[in-house]
């Protein structure tokens, strides 16, 4: 088994001091170290944003792609080589804004990919615009009027799309998060975790303090992730202007569905260069 240090790289970590991303990075490294995986068996696919940089900070294979496109990149990798352990990482702008369509359909497809969405409620790398997950009324430097949309609820979207593993973590609880990622790594299907992540620079609403006061562990409340109705109810728990409720973290919902890359697929790697010339000959013959 690879040591935890094996999961780091030489790349300088360029996040702000105090950023919630550090907790996520730690948790991911711990989860990988615990998962009996070798670095060369893992591919981390990153979007563009502060979150996506994780790809370069995990000592594994990586494809650090385009803003919003971590999921299709990851799906391409997985369909081409189902033996690889594939992890897609991106911010909330990445996954829910630019890449929203891919996420929707990923839940439906259910490939055996772990998907980590760093939810800091803001566009970090581009300096503080509202993200889909920004709360209603969230103000930004230049937009004093605040946003006029209710926050995007990724877990609700996942459940609505038939997602098979729908979870929420908190960067401030690394131990819990590492366990969660571990479960997602073990799940045969689309292991989706929305991760509450304070952005110390641009999000002064959803701070570490704010979260710490409110998060509670679903498991402690003996929530059964097999109960879709209970999951639906828990997913709606979120503080609002009217009512300040607690925020559940943990696995909301889990189900068994075949992993997409095993459905009507070659079922093995289609990488490398090898093919059957007889198939081509036969194919040609069909045009006589």
């Amino acid at each position: 088994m690879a040591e935890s240090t094996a999961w780091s790289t030489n790349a300088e970590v360029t996040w702000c001091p105090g950023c919630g991303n550090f907790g996520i990075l730690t948790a991911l490294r711990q989860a990988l170290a615990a998962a009996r995986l070798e670095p060369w068996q893992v591919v981390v696919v990153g979007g563009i944003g502060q979150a996506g940089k994780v790809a370069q900070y995990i000592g594994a294979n990586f494809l650090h792609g385009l803003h919003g496109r971590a999921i299709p990149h990851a799906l391409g990798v997985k369909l081409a080589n189902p033996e690889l352990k594939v992890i897609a990482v991106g911010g909330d702008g990445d996954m829910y804004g630019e890449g929203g369509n891919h996420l929707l359909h990923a839940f439906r497809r259910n490939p055996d990919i772990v998907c980590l969405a760093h939810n800091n409620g803001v566009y970090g790398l581009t300096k503080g615009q509202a993200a889909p997950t920004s709360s209603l009324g969230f103000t930004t430097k230049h937009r004093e009027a605040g946003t006029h949309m209710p926050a995007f609820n990724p877990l609700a979207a996942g459940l609505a799309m038939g997602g098979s593993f729908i979870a929420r973590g908190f960067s401030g609880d690394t131990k819990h998060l590492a366990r969660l990622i571990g479960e997602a790594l073990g799940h045969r299907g689309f292991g989706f975790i929305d991760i509450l992540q304070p952005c110390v620079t641009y999000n002064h609403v959803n701070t570490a303090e704010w979260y710490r006061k409110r998060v509670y562990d679903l498991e402690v409340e003996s929530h059964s992730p097999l109960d879709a109705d209970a999951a639906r109810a828990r997913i709606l728990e979120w503080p609002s202007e009217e009512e300040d409720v607690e925020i559940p973290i943990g696995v909301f919902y889990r189900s068994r569905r075949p992993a997409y890359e095993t459905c009507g697929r070659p079922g093995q790697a289609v990488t490398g260069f090898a093919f059957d010339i007889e198939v081509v000959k036969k194919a040609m013959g069909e045009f006589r």
Partner: protein
Amino acid sequence: MTDVTLTVAGQAGQGIDTASELLARALVRSGYHTFSYPNIMSRIRGGHNFTAVRVSDRQVYSVPGKFNALLAMDELSVDEHRGDMVEGGMIIAEPPESPSPRPSPAGGEGEEAGIAFRVPMAVIAEKHGGTKRMANVVGLGALLALTGHPATGLRSLLKERFAAKGEEVVKQNLGCLKAGADYVKKKWGGTCPCELPKQTRQPRRLLVSGNHAIALGALASGVRFHAGYPMSPSTPIMEYLAAKQAEAGLVMEQAEDEIAAINMVIGASYAGARAMTATSGGGFALMVEGLGMAAMAELPVVIVIAMRAGPATGFPTRTEQGELLFVTSASQDEFPRFVFAPGTAEEAFYATNRAFELAARFQVPAIVLSDQQLSDSLWTVPSFNLARVKASSDFDELLWQGRPANSYQRYAFTRDGISPRLRPGTRGQLVRSLGTEHDEDGFQNEDKAVRVKMHGKRMSKFEAMARAVERPTCYPEETAEVIVFCFGSTYGAAREAVDILRAERASVAMVHLCDLVPFPRERVAGLLSPARKVITVEGNSTGQLAILLRRETGIKADEQVLKYDGRPFEAKALAEEIGAKCK
């Protein structure tokens, strides 16, 4: 010499495609060359579609001028194509339900060129156990009978085609075919307005659409991954590969949109699969960012673009060559790429193979630029020569065995700018690919010296790429006074136009550019020196090939023939235009 055109026309949904395809295939099997161009509207039922099947004992490459025979599945088709018939051409059509307001076509009536053969096809079809929908087969029977061509080929074809549907269906079809023939023989026995004699030699040729030639080219190049989103006129490529998934051990993924498609292809290529997508201009517009990503990450991808008339949604089912410059410079900043614009289905097969091979060899994107004419037409081609196909591995895993762990550098600087590839999942090594500027290890890097070197590494491939492409095709020689330049499917009409003009003793030759980027600069410049006059022929309104010629060689086309009505060039009309400009 035989060169006749048999056209099947009617509404979408009346089996125009099937009938014309069966006809062409039967004739190809019996030794003829054919070229069928489907003229289709953007709808599923109704409207007016027609497919002209040109039949000849020599190779034919382009849409016909006039029709020798018309199988009209509705009266609108008769009205529509009356004027397209050669003098004395035959029109097979249903007896008009009510006498048409205009005079119905009949031989010798002066203004009408076609001779009408009224065959109650639907009634006959129903009588012979079939449904109305088999009226087209009755029509085929009638048509073939009037050409004097034996029906044996068509009969065995129907048997093959409908075998899966059961004997009953086969019987019905054969019955309809025969009944159509019997009807005309009985009524107009002995008439043969358009003779198609039996051919003596029957070489094993294929009847294949441009799209299918491309798909076969991909198969023959070891394609293992295709992600796509439907878009006319490229969709049959994806459909074909979908059907071949199990057999060829490949993955065909229908994406939620084109952006997903190209980015899946990039992921698959990173993983080490030979990967491609196919789309049209509008879908490609959405892939432009992904194109740059593939280039920056140095991942080979093949993108097929079947052009249609635009801008925007334009003419979804019609042809145009409006995207040459677009694909040449699409995406932010600069990187080397290949662009191939084959002229025929045969060339499309080999060009697709070149696209895969060269993309893999140079780790760059390659674009195969087709168009609706090339993609949708059915071409008669010699069996593809698999010995001519290049298929080599882009990985050398052995190279990495025994190397120190973690020593792999995805973007190692090398003499030729090409860094050895490795598949992620190789024990002890890590593969880092990215779309941000980076160092040899594949980590993001903002240093300017590293940038200059890494950008230089990517760009440096271009020269070797230029040596790897094929030279343009000259036909029939290089020393004529006038040289006609074209690219893509305009080849066929241009070639035939040159034949026509040379038969009239004009000193004209042509050059067809399939491999367009890198541009074969020296070769083209060399071709131009002895020429007195350069005429470009292309399916767009600004003369993009002329622009490319000028920017690459400084040479300005003396004359341009442009067409942008959504229809392919016709050889005869083109010959006239070129002829006029020769003077």
